């Protein structure tokens, strides 16, 4: 407040209506990543027939979010990621990382990238590879040594730091990939299938690292086929199909309308009553000492609850079961396919 007062005291009266530059920056920060009507067309090298891999994708990534790119094989996820990294150029449209073209090396200075099924120089050890990566980022020798050691320890590779990468298993290579993506302390992480090749413990560790990175303020763009993990990690997702964005939104927003069924927990239920419920098209299953009745709609829920109360059956719980991201994904793709038929 006092700083604002000092500022206004120093500014002449004719500048009263003009906001100082830092105030403008606070009001209108550049989005971390902006894709505007991006199209990527490849030509078959033999027939020269054009093929559109990405067809008018527009996305904006806000700072500090984890954004998931979902889609079946050939949906355009990797093609989109390669354009974001400057490995290919868009045929049409623009991509900007903090206002810069990804082709500009400065746009990639604070970017970390984990490729799908990563493959690194197998003549190097993990430490040598991270040293090379650190040099490419222009990190000072002692800093890159310290960061490499810390990252290898954090990813459980401390004991294998000097082993040649050709002797690494798929999971260990994936961990080296995560380490090299984090070496420059990025503010933007692009991860292509980060859970691929990892065992459950490795997945849990990588998820933990990604959460920590988000807390640090890093924005994460990840593509994944493991939808359960995407659901638990991502703030927002985009579903891609045939190079186009089918849906984009927060995971909660996409799934909020999708109550698949209602689960009624009961302490006891007679076999006759269970049969009667099943005859009405509901599911009634005994789970241990309890019973769970599943009904498909809210109106059916009211009717079944009334029936159970009238029969004097004690109701333990009533819970909606929402659609999982996987179910939503399959439904969205199914609707798209039906629409295109």
């Amino acid at each position, binding site marked *: 407040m006092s700083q604002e007062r000092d500022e206004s005291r120093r500014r002449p009266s004719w500048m009263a209506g003009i906001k100082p530059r830092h105030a403008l920056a606070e009001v209108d920060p550049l989005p971390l990543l902006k894709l505007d009507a991006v199209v990527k067309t*490849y030509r078959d090298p033999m027939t020269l027939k054009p093929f559109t891999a990405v067809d008018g994708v527009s996305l904006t990534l806000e700072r500090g979010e984890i954004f998931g790119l979902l889609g079946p094989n050939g949906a355009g996820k990797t093609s989109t990621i*390669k354009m974001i*990294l*400057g*490995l*290919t*150029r868009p045929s049409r449209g623009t991509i900007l990382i903090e206002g810069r073209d990804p082709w500009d*090396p*400065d746009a*990639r*200075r604070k*970017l970390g*990238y984990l*490729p799908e099924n*990563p*493959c*690194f*120089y197998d*003549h*190097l050890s993990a430490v*040598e590879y991270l040293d*090379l*990566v650190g*040099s*490419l*980022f*222009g990190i000072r020798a002692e800093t890159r040594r310290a960061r490499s050691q810390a990252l290898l320890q954090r990813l459980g590779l401390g004991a294998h730091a000097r082993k040649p990468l050709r002797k690494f298993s798929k999971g260990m290579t994936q961990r080296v*990939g995560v380490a*090299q993506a984090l070496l420059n302390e990025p503010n933007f992480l*692009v991860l292509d299938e980060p859970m691929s090749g990892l065992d459950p413990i490795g997945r849990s560790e990588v998820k933990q690292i990604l959460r920590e990175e988000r807390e640090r303020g890093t924005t994460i763009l990840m593509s994944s086929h493991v939808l359960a993990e995407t659901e638990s990690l991502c703030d927002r997702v985009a579903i891609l199909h045939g190079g186009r964005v089918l849906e984009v939104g927060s995971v909660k927003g996409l799934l909020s309308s999708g109550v698949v069924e209602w689960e009624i927990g009961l302490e006891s239920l007679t076999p006759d009553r269970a049969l009667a419920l099943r005859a009405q098209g509901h599911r009634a299953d005994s789970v241990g000492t309890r019973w769970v009745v599943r009904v498909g709609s809210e109106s059916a829920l009211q009717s079944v609850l009334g029936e159970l109360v009238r029969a004097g059956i004690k109701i333990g719980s009533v819970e909606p079961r929402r659609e999982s991201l996987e179910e939503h994904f399959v439904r969205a793709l199914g609707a798209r396919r039906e629409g295109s038929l």
Partner: protein
Amino acid sequence: MTRTLAIAQNTLREVARERVVLVLALFGLMLLMGSQVLSPLALGEGRKVVIDFGLAGSSFLATILCVFLGSSLLHKELERRTVYAVLAKPIRREEFLLGKFLGLWVTAAMLLGGMAVILLAVVTVAYHDTPWQILGAVGLNLVELGIVTAVVVFFSSFTTPALTAFFAVAATVAGHFAEDLRYFASQGTPGIRAMVEAAYWMLPHLDLFNARGLVVHGASVGVERLLYAFSYGLLYVIGMLILAGTIFRRREFR
């Protein structure tokens, strides 16, 4: 420059850790030692034979290293996709290519330099006279290796390893006969003359870098020739790398 040097160091490590380099180095050592066996047959000209054989052998082996290891270097990066993780870092493609060139050239230069040191030692021990004048010939050879490496990098920026090796070998062999090519051009019809003249100007004039005939007879390579050859070599390398960089910059990594 740090990024280019990092790529160069990695390329040097990659090439130097190939078993074939060890084989080439051992082969070179055997060649230099073996030339001693031939010297008694040279009727008092043993020293000349050892120097001539040693210089030709080391140049040949270093060229083999450049062409056959260099032709697959870039292709291996693309095929195994190691290049994706590297080019996603803040490095220009031209810097990457320059690093590859430097790494390969320095490795070949180390092989050539090592063999030159052994040649000096062999001649000194066998004939009690150190032929320092071979250093001029080795210096010219280093520039020639730079040109061959740049040609390899140029072709590998857009074609397959087999074609790269073929074109590089063809350019190296034809480059050693560039002056003869010009002579043939003068004998042909105007159409052929124009074509052969164009080939003459495009090919590297590698005969400029062959000073074996001089140093074998105890003469030194003149400063004027050294300067001319170094300037020509530098310009040719820069030209090749600019062309390679332009092609590689436009390349899409699908």
